[in-house]
């Protein structure tokens, strides 16, 4: 059964979510600065703009997160854990690229021998309401990286903006709990075919030409290539691409101390920072921007696939959109393609 939510019912619907759970949704902080934020009032929510500047990963792996608090008790310490999530959470308006990115973060934080308790609790507590991308941007290439503007995978509920209303799809057990919601009505055939039309149009619009197929193997042969000299040349190491990347997950751990206690926190970190890998002795295994840029690209397209079988890029285009020097990761990927490499060997290379 296909459901819909009339836009006039959106605010009461949001209020009902706020009453039941902690609601996270896109909020316009300033012009062009759209982020996911915990919502106090329904009119804060902005579902009309394109994708958020900061990715939805923030709800699961916050930019700064307290790991525990400690207090001095004589010669010892009383440690208070902060890993519990007290209230259920709903995140609304997440784009398919960000949802796909969360599935990649799952591999890191939940996988192999150790489970990250903070991330796991955030994940378990959250119902994910995905939002179809009716109007992909020119920087979007999710269709090249195994996703798409209408990819439902990972969403519990999926919204498609029809103008006057949202078409609502309930996709998982968590999603089905909304079946009896008073705000959802049955959608008519006209609305369903309108949603189809929007989907087809959006699919045509996204870029499918970025050659990520086989990139892992190609990069295997390029670790010591002069390719990296050219790739890094432009980069000023500002790190914005890594902070705004929905799949980048590196963090730093540090203590914030007061006289009688304090907390251990972790903060987003970036492989493009020189301090990131610098050892106490002063030795740095990645001494220049060349090695650091290589690390960023190789991690996404070679190391991550080796460990988890998938590339760590979802084609959201944020790193292209917000780069101050117009570095375009699509071009870097393009350069690795066989055709390009041949051109380079022929000496007819073009600058990015």
């Amino acid at each position, binding site marked *: 059964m296909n459901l819909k939510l009339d836009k006039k019912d959106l605010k009461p619907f949001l209020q009902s979510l706020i009453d039941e759970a902690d609601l996270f949704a896109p909020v316009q902080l300033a012009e062009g600065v759209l982020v996911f934020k915990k919502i106090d009032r329904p009119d804060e929510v902005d579902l009309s703009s394109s994708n958020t500047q900061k990715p939805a990963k923030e709800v699961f792996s916050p930019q700064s997160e307290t790991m525990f608090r400690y207090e001095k008790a004589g010669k010892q310490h009383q440690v208070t854990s902060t890993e519990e999530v007290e209230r259920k959470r709903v995140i609304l308006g997440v784009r398919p690229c960000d949802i796909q990115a969360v599935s990649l973060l799952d591999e890191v934080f939940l996988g*192999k021998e150790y489970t990250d308790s903070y991330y796991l609790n955030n994940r378990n507590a959250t119902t994910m309401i995905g939002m179809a991308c009716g109007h992909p941007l020119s920087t979007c290439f999710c269709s090249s990286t195994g996703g798409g503007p209408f990819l439902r995978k990972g969403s519990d509920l999926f919204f498609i903006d029809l103008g006057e209303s949202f078409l609502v799809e309930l996709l998982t057990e968590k999603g089905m709990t909304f079946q009896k919601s008073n705000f959802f009505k049955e959608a008519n055939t006209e609305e369903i075919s309108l949603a189809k039309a929007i989907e087809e149009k959006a699919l045509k619009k996204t870029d499918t030409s970025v050659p990520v197929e086989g990139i892992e193997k190609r990069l295997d042969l390029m670790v010591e290539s002069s390719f990296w000299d050219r790739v890094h040349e432009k980069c000023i190491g500002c790190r914005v691409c890594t902070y705004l990347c929905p799949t980048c*997950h590196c963090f730093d751990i540090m203590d914030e101390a007061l006289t009688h206690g304090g907390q251990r926190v*972790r903060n987003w970190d970036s492989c493009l920072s020189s301090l990131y890998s610098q050892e*106490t002795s002063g030795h740095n295994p990645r001494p220049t921007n060349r090695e650091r840029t290589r690390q960023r690209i*190789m991690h996404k397209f*070679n190391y991550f696939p080796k460990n988890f079988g998938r590339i760590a890029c979802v084609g959201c285009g944020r790193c292209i959109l917000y780069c101050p020097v117009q570095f375009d990761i699509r071009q870097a990927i393009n350069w690795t393609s066989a055709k390009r490499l041949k051109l380079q060997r022929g000496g007819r290379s073009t600058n990015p």
Partner: protein
Amino acid sequence: MKNPYHPIPMIVKKASVETTDRMLRTLQLSFLNEEDAKAFRFIPGQFCELSIFGKGEAPLGIASSPTENGSLKFTINKAGVVTTALHHIEEGTEVGMRGPLGNGYPIDIFQGKNVLVIGGGFAFTTLRSLIAFFLHPENRNKVKDITVIYGARMPGLLLYKEELKEWEKRSDIKLVVTVDWGDKDWKGKVGLVPNVLEELAPSSENTYAVICGPPIMIKFTFPKLMALQFPDERIYTSLERRMKCGIGKCGRCNIGHIYVCNDGPVFNYAQLKKLPKDY
């Protein structure tokens, strides 16, 4: 489920300065809670994240052997914020410990073989763990000959001096201690580790080499091992990288797709050869 970021409370039982330059201090830690002590199992070559609340965490190789029950030993080089704080900490104070982390030395692979241990400087800590483990009566017959070459810049910089004396007396271990520069009281060998290895020329037959030391020592020792016909698969070393989480999440310690904290820190030379030269 256990939160892997929560430190286990430990108490500093004993602290002692190892070297004349006072840069290396050994802390002996014991568990504050009985159940933590019971649950803790490790193998030589593994490491822990030691922390002082308010200062932070630092990764340190375990210097004690699993055969020395009840306490853990770490020898700490005074270098950064946390290690400096660990140098100033008093006996009886609490420190946090997360671990054991990493893979450790491949004890099972060494079974029935000769073991050649080559150490330089303060990297000798986890090698001490390995040697003490195999010298324990329960484990001594697990491996055949144990040969140890251990070098320091000066006699005063040698670690575990009392223990070295004990080992020298034993017949079931061949120990060669060398220094770059001797002093008037030094009766032992003078010479760089790679040269001492060449001179000693241990047979590579049925032998595994474990080598830990400063990069410059490793660089010059590898060719000597090659000359002695050690195959890449039988040369083990332990790597150090800047680390934070120690459990393969925070990113920074990777060399290619390998994470030194979780996949290492112990690798053989054949494995290292396959990785990008990013270390």
